[in-house]
């Protein structure tokens, strides 16, 4: 394993310390409790948004703390959900008196820890609502799984619900819209090479030189199936077919082509071009787009594609000003 780290146990702390000094006007970082919050604090009377999850997905979530998105984020150990104490601290930081929305990706650990924290926050008198993100079509939502995973749509939920909160909507309205964004979004991921968790020291799974893994999650876990590597066009078609079969793509679409951490941008843009052609064939248009590394799996090579069926309201909220470390426009 070759990595730019000092010590496998210090990776998260080192990164948070760096984040704090890289964005001093934007972010405050409490290294003891591991909470990242807006430097200027919670806006009184505004609904706050809190998200968190395992580290290793940067810029998710800390990179999305700031005006128009999250009030606070709580990063756990690598690929491990935060603990209730962290979530409670983040909720306190984001609470402006109008309640707090927890944006939770659907993984057993995240769900359990956020549930425990939400109960304790309610006892402390903070109104908490939760939106569960479960956009990954690679997992069948059935009695035989823990349900669909939360992946790329998390960025859309945080951006769009965060914008609505900035406009002064109530907790109920923000939570409802967040759920709507999730319901209208689907994702699918593909890996060319597995990631290496620093504490494990070697890749989580081995992919042959001419193999790719379809339907991967964002924790380096193996995916739905392993197939021979194919030209990008065919890989994109497989991914887009999976989205389209689950939720017919039509009209105006918000599309994210997301790198898993170890994929060159030149390849991601190639993928986006192919995605746009696919959409055109279905009579859909990529009305808004994101191309880059937003929900990563450490150094994994591969990409995920997320599509959200837009409405005029969703488009307006997507376009609304945002100022975070990882997304910034209109302000």
């Amino acid at each position: 394993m070759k990595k730019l780290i000092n010590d496998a146990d210090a990776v998260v702390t080192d990164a948070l310390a760096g984040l704090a000094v890289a964005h001093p006007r934007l972010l405050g970082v409490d290294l003891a409790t591991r909470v990242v919050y807006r430097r200027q604090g919670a806006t009184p009377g505004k609904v706050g948004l809190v998200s968190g999850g395992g580290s290793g997905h940067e810029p998710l979530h800390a990179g999305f703390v700031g005006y128009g998105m999250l009030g606070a984020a709580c990063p756990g150990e690598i690929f491990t959900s935060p603990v209730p104490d962290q979530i409670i601290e983040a909720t306190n930081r984001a609470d402006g008196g109008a309640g707090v929305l927890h944006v939770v990706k659907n993984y057993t650990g995240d769900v359990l820890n956020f549930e425990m924290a939400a109960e304790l926050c309610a006892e402390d008198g903070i109104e908490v609502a939760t939106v569960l993100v479960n956009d990954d079509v690679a997992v069948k939502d059935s009695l035989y799984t823990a349900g669909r995973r939360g992946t790329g749509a998390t960025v859309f939920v945080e951006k769009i619900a965060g914008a609505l909160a900035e406009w002064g909507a109530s907790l109920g309205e923000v939570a409802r819209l967040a759920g709507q964004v999730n319901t209208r979004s689907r994702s699918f991921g593909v890996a060319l090479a597995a990631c290496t968790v620093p504490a494990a020291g070697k890749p989580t799974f081995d992919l042959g030189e001419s193999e790719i893994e379809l339907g991967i999650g964002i924790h380096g876990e193996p995916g739905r199936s392993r197939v021979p590597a194919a030209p990008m066009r065919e890989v994109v078609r497989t991914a887009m077919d999976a989205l389209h079969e689950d939720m017919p793509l039509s009209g105006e679409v918000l599309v994210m082509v997301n790198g898993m951490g170890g994929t060159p941008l030149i390849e991601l843009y190639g993928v986006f071009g192919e995605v746009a052609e696919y959409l055109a064939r279905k009579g859909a248009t990529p009305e808004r787009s994101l191309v880059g590394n937003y929900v990563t799996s450490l150094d994994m090579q591969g990409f995920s594609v997320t599509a959200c069926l837009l409405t005029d309201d969703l488009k307006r909220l997507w376009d609304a000003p945002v100022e975070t470390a990882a997304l910034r426009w209109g302000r």
Partner: protein
Amino acid sequence: MDARFFAAWMTETAHAVAAARDELTRLDAAIGDADHGTNLDRGFTAVTESPPAAATPREVLTAAGTTLIRKVGGASGPLYGTALRRMGAALPDTPEVSLADLAEALTAGVDGVRRLGGAAEGDKTMVDALAPAARALTEAVRAGASPEAALDAAMSAAEAGAKATVPLRARKGRASYLGERSVGHMDPGAASTSLLLAALRAACGPGSPGAGSGPAGPA
């Protein structure tokens, strides 16, 4: 069985988890996300590093469970933390508890895990090791077995339960995303549960099964 016995259980568990850290992570890498060993090691190290001034078995287990919930994260923190806290709550709040009390507490712990995680036996989770262990302990108590023999039986049942997860298809937790591809691997949660039951037996000290010696203090 007094507070020292239960503290010894936690210490034995911490040693066992530290020794098996890489193996647990390797099992987790096969069907999960390669962090089970490091997470549990961090949790049980925290449990033994700052042992609470606990006078009763109930206090030892409740405090240990709370520490796991606070320190571990992931699914295993809340699940193991809840198991220990439910066990603690089910014990009488007295300086000494009986083997029968322990059997009842372990059953309560299994119920807590089942309720929180929503897993049933056969879903390829820690419940597959924990539930048989609780049953074996209860049966041994009913048969009038010595603590050593009863905890031997619980340990063996957990180990067999963990091994029996290998051919199963996961239906809960992160391994469930793999569907059929989870078959052929031992569930890491069941494997670590088996370590906890072995540590419980070790805390009872040496003694041959069925020797009929009285309740033993920590080794």
